């Protein structure tokens, strides 16, 4: 079935998959966000153990998604792998070290005789949460802002600064995304704690913290997005494959790809919904009413702004209504915010790579910029891998099943305190 597709179609298919994996990864990084909150929310050892254990039962998913994201990127766009990893050496090394600390942090924290003491491993988790989110956010921002590298005719790449990626952290636009991801993951973590920890003391602190994290998140997110919409983008001339700077490129991408726009707006709305219903404890009925009004307003706006056809209008309206009926009452803000995060990041990555855009641009040498066409694997390899990708739904299904099986019950003090077998606690 994949043999009938063109090389370009396969490249696009894999960019969609990479974007989706990246989006899921950002959502799952609520684990990292949560790790930065263990001391803020947990004032006693028992409280921290509760928090770390609800996160701990999810850390493997984030970690595995990161591994898969790396593997899939390597497989489908190897020139990105060699250019970015070999070039922005220090950024990736710092991220790697942070993730090593995470794995050991969880596994050793609660074990007897662990040499450095519980607190050290908790600090490991904190460092991973801080560095993991800020650095990955900063690294992703370079998909829009560019990096200093060149690629020669043999497809060997060369980083043009001796700082090997550290200079990227000095760019304010990059940092704004890093900080956004930091606060986003903390916000998601707070919502996640509400849905999975059964403890009044902690719940009280979570609700207070939600203000301190959700508000900065919204501010930084808007800063990043507005900046992104206004800046020049790295466009590709489809006939000559020449790369050039185009004003308002990413804004245009959204307008020219209505589907990406819809996904983006839906995502943003869902994240905001998740935060707002939790902050104001809004009932399900009220939420339904408010969101219906917003959705209709957005649609009307869309019709006015672009040539928006009515079939698409009715279609998306139906999807929204379906979503509204599908979700459970408003105690679970994480489901709104989580799915919203996935959609938003997914749309952002789509506009980075599609519509004749360079997804990994070089600001030193524009013509070295990577596009999904000039950096991908061969037709044969992409075809073979596309067959493998058919397993993804099965993988998601068993993950979902296992996840549900393990989290039917919220964690509480009793579970942590009566556990006589320390192998079952992090």
């Amino acid at each position, binding site marked *: 079935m994949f043999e009938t597709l063109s090389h370009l179609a396969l490249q696009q298919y894999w960019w969609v998959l990479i974007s989706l994996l990246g989006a899921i990864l950002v959502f799952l990084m609520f684990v990292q966000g949560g790790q930065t909150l263990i001391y803020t929310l947990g004032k006693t050892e028992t409280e921290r153990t509760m928090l770390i254990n609800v996160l701990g039962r999810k850390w493997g998913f984030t970690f595995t998604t990161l591994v898969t994201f790396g593997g899939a990127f390597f497989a489908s766009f190897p020139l990105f792998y*060699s250019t970015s990893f070999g070039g922005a050496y220090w950024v990736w090394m710092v991220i790697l070290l942070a993730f090593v600390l995470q794995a050991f942090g969880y596994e050793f924290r609660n074990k007897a005789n662990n040499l450095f003491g519980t607190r050290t491993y908790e600090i490991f988790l904190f460092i991973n949460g801080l560095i993991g989110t800020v650095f990955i956010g900063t690294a992703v921002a370079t998909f829009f802002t560019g990096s200093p590298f060149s690629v020669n005719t043999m497809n060997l790449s060369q980083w043009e600064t001796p700082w090997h990626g550290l200079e990227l952290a000095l760019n304010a636009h990059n940092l704004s995304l890093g900080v956004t991801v930091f606060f986003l993951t903390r916000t998601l973590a707070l919502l996640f704690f509400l849905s999975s920890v059964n403890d009044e003391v902690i719940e009280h602190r979570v609700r207070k913290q939600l203000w301190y994290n959700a508000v900065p998140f919204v501010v930084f997110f808007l800063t990043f997005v507005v900046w992104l919409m206004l800046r020049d983008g790295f466009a590709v001339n489809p006939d000559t494959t020449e790369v050039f700077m185009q004003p308002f490129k990413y804004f245009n991408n959204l307008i020219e790809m209505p589907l990406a726009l819809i996904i983006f707006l839906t995502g943003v709305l869902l994240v905001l919904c998740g935060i707002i219903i939790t902050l104001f404890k809004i009932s399900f009925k009220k939420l339904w009413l408010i969101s219906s009004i917003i959705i209709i307003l957005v649609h009307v706006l869309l019709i006015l702004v672009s040539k928006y056809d009515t079939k698409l209008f009715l279609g998306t309206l139906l999807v929204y209504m379906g979503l509204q009926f599908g979700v459970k009452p408003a105690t679970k803000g994480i489901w709104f915010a989580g799915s919203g995060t996935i959609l938003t990041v997914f749309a952002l990555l789509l506009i980075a790579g599609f519509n004749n855009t360079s997804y990994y641009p070089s600001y030193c040498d524009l013509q070295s910029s990577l596009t999904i066409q000039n950096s991908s694997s061969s037709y044969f390899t992409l075809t073979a891998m596309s067959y493998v990708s058919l397993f993804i739904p099965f993988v998601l299904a068993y993950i979902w099943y296992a996840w549900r099986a393990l989290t039917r019950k919220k964690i509480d003090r009793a579970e942590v305190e009566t556990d006589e077998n320390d192998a079952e606690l992090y």
Partner: protein
Amino acid sequence: MLENIDFTLIDWSRAQFALTAMFHWVFVPLTLGLGFMNAFTETVYYKTGNPEWKKLTKFWMKLFGINFACGVATGLILEFEFGTNWAAYSWFVGDIFGAPLAIEGIFAFFMESTFVAVMFFGWDKVSKKFHLASTWLTAIGANISALWILVANGWMQNPVGTAFNPDTARNEMTNFWDVLLSGTAVNKFIHSTTFGFVLAAVVVIGVSSWYLLKKRELLFAKRSIVVAAVFGLISSIALIVTGDTSAKNVVKTQPMKLAAMEALYDGSENAPLVAFGILGGSETHKNINANSRENFVFKIEMPGMLSFLAHGDFKTFVAGIKDLVLGNESQGIMSYSEKIRRGHIAAQTLVAYKDAKLNNPDGEEFRMLKAKFEDETFMNDYFAYFGYAPYYDENPDVLQQNAFKLVPPISLTFYSFHLMVILGFYFILFFVVVLVLIFKNKYHNKCWLLWVSLISIPLVYIGGQAGWIVAEVGRQPWAIQDLLPVVTAVSKIDASSVMITFTLFAVVFIALFIAEIMILLKQIKTGPKIEEETSNV
């Protein structure tokens, strides 16, 4: 060309990768084998409902869990280090290497890490049947994960199923099944996983023997030993068999590695196998030239065995290091100097191709060059040595010296190989003795043997590391055999950056390794816990 290369960078990059890989291989093999042993003992528990078997399973699972997380963490670093430290390599092989890696991530690794969560936290949360299935799936997932990375490694040792594309300047996959089912890959997979089984068996027997020495957990220990010894004996036989096939493959695909494994300078018919030996004069093995001679302080030889091992016939010729470097016309071996010349021509052709494509893509010259890359004779006679090109020099004397730089470190390869083989045979003997005595119910009284079992734990880890040293050091300087030497594969960063990251990783790994050992020892000291049988869902 070679004088422009920063060898400090290459050495540190190799050191960093070796460090990560070796730590990875400390944690991983135990999970490969222990996973299946857990699955087996839990199946017994499921069938009999005897809580003793649950206790046994849970104890070994705990050790599994501690190792698992460490294996995952070091594995992530390995995956990303391909990109960070071997950028050119990543591009060159991405089209082949990437696919198995992606499959590993999407399919096997998710299976492993999803069900490992159920295995640890699901005892009273999911049904007994689902839990048992999870334990099996964790074990299978761990081993399939190993499959894909070993396929990738097998391809680097013996690149098959691919073709060079001059437009992208890389090798591209043409046949997925050739890559997956190449003899080298399949053999490597079986050899590595069965080693994991042997290692887990030795660890289980060793730890159980400690309980017997302390006169604790007698029933638990004996049961564990029976399961482990049977599992270990079967696995160790498979390990030796695949080791032998492995050597036969190496003769064909990497003759230099075989010569280094045996420190064989001059090839011969009826070549003897050095069963045990000590190399003399450490310096002579480092700076090899046309006059170098083999130099043993002491050796025990088995006449004709190397020829037999290599070709299944005592009479056949086995090439030595000098035959390979200098060439041997009577045996039809092309010299390295000639290979370097041919590789240089291939590289020049590629450069000309790129120039022609840029300047005049419709011209006659471009068409001629393009035809070359489609011509099988050119590809087989010249391009096959593409990787030798960086060793070219116009001065024939320098070229000759450079040819000797293609010889891997001899003493390290030689000693690692012999250590590995001796330990391999030792473990078969070990499992047989343990099995016989445990069935005669005499094992627990033999104090000396209990100690031997305990000491075997570090030995089996050393054996595994030695095996990988043979495989990886023995193929230097190739990242990909004959196509890409490490000097080309490396990321062009400052050596000092790599030194710093190497040090950081070394400190973190060593500190956490010590912590792990302490935790494991504590867990073992505490021992398996008897728990009241809780009713399951």
